[in-house]
């Protein structure tokens, strides 16, 4: 901070799970659409209905818990969190309460903020609950309620206290790494702008070296990584100023206004005991045997960190390349899939992070929205590796693939772009160029080495760049020698 204060940040992250159906009924999940069209008596809280948990959602949380190095309890139950608010038709939210009852507890996630030492952020719990409906404020008066989202499986991941995160940069890095891990696990689409991943940090400041933590505020409505960082920065500054003026920081929930970049106080909520948590009698307890947990652990996909290490160690990629290829799920999957077709990793990496990235940048397209597939890149790299095409032709063929979706080997065949390595043909072309350029040829013979470039260039020009330049040069030297 540089101001004689230090900040502490706890992170509460809500993640909508990528299941096909809701948590306790089999209504489909989805985003948008006509209101109240993905609802049934269970998620509308009609009397006499019986909820049944989604097996897939439970497994996704166990997976996440293990990937976050958490303990998974033998027994875990759902609780009712009771409060009246129209976004919940039942009068309670099904959630999980307690220190060691949630599906995951006492874990950690390693973060590596730029230019700093790696740091472990301790995780307090990973639990499963249900999302709420959406309130829509209508101009005609009254609030409209859409229950399409009510009951969607929601995973909550909370960091431990005392907080390990001490500034906005670390908070953002934590969120970036957590989201990436969740995408690798395939448990969410992670879309912050659609609310699939929501972050509510709680923030406090205290004088440097103080033994106790300051009063914390919770920040809501952060819809992007940038908002998370800006919001925390603002809140830290606001609290320091209050303390400097001798005012107390109030324990409250504040909202973040993205256009004014200012936080504002929100409705104060009930205190924890007011929620009157109790085990939900409608939902049977979950039991996780050691075998179940081990089976899930064995099936865990490779983590972003492990993949980064593997790319450096086994594929010989640089830190930079390995970072680019693992830090976005679309790139990671694209590279893995092309690599699986048996091509040279370094060449593939260069063509992917070089020309492919440039074309995507220029067109403003994401790789998944372009016509390029991993097979296009693998096909291209295979031809470069075998010497079938040179890199100049490869560039043209890649651009064609990007524009039309044509398979590179098809373009090479149909347009006759294959590299000419035929010895007889090269011998003839070289002899012709020497005969047509007696001056430069004589200069080379009398020791002017650099003229070879011009002579080779003439052969390349005559063959539209398709001759193998190394072979041409070799033959040129032989004939002039």
């Amino acid at each position, binding site marked *: 901070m540089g101001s004689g204060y230090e900040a502490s940040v706890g992170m509460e992250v809500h993640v909508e799970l990528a299941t096909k159906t809701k948590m306790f009924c089999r209504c489909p999940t989805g985003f948008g659409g006509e209101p109240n069209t993905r609802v049934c008596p269970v998620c509308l809280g009609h009397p006499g209905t019986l909820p049944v948990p989604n097996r897939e959602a439970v497994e996704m949380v166990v997976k996440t818990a293990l990937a976050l190095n958490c303990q998974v309890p033998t027994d875990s139950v759902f609780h009712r969190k009771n409060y009246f608010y129209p976004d919940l038709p039942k009068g309670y939210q099904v959630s999980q309460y307690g220190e060691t009852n949630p599906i995951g507890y006492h874990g950690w996630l390693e973060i590596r903020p730029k230019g700093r030492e790696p740091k472990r952020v301790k995780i307090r719990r990973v639990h499963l609950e249900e999302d709420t409906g959406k309130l829509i404020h209508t101009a005609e008066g009254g609030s409209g309620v859409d229950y399409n989202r009510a009951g969607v499986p929601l995973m909550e991941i909370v960091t431990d206290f005392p907080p390990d995160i001490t500034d906005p940069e670390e908070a953002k890095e934590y969120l970036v790494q957590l989201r990436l891990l969740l995408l690798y696990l395939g448990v969410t689409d992670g879309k912050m702008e659609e609310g699939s991943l929501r972050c509510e940090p709680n923030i406090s400041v205290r004088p440097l070296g103080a033994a106790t933590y300051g009063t914390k505020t919770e920040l809501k409505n952060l819809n992007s990584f940038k908002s998370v960082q800006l919001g925390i920065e603002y809140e830290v500054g606001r609290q320091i100023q209050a303390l400097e003026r001798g005012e107390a920081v109030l324990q409250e929930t504040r909202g973040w206004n993205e256009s004014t970049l200012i936080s504002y106080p*929100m409705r104060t909520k009930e205190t924890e005991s007011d929620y009157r948590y109790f085990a939900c009698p409608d939902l049977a307890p979950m039991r996780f045997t050691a075998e179940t947990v081990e089976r899930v652990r064995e099936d865990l996909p490779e983590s972003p960190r492990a993949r980064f290490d593997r790319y450096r160690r086994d594929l010989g990629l640089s830190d930079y390349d390995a970072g680019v290829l693992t830090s976005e799920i679309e790139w990671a999957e694209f590279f893995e899939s092309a690599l699986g077709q048996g091509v040279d990793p370094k060449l593939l990496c260069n063509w992917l992070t070089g020309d492919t990235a440039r074309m995507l940048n220029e067109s403003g397209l994401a790789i998944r929205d372009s016509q390029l597939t991993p097979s296009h890149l693998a096909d291209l790299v295979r031809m470069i590796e075998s010497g079938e095409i040179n890199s100049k032709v490869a560039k043209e063929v890649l651009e064609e693939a990007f524009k039309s979706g044509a398979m590179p080997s098809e373009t090479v065949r149909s347009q006759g772009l294959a590299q000419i390595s035929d010895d007889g043909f090269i011998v003839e072309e070289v002899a012709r160029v020497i005969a047509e350029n007696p001056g430069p040829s004589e200069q080379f013979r009398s020791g002017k080495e650099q003229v070879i470039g011009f002579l080779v260039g003439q052969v390349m020009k005559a063959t539209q760049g398709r001759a193998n330049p190394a072979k041409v040069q070799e033959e040129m030297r032989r004939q002039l020698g």
Partner: protein
Amino acid sequence: MSITLDEVRHVARLARLELDEAELLAFQGELNSLLGRCQELQSIDVGELSPRTHAVALTNVLADDTPTQGLDQSLALRGAAVTRAGLFVVPTIIEE
């Protein structure tokens, strides 16, 4: 252990119940007799038993993640007092 009148007011507010003084007093009496009953239960020695949250011996009652047809919009809204544009309408909620 007994419940104060203020505590009755508090839980009534959490339950969104509007009670007059006479009702508050009546509920105080009823809640206190319920608490008395709980105290009786607490005197039972359960030292040999492990705590449990459910009376039934079921675990892992889970369903497959396969969508089924729910209610269509008009049917979903049929029981609502006020609706507009496919939404349930409730008295204005002031969030900020």
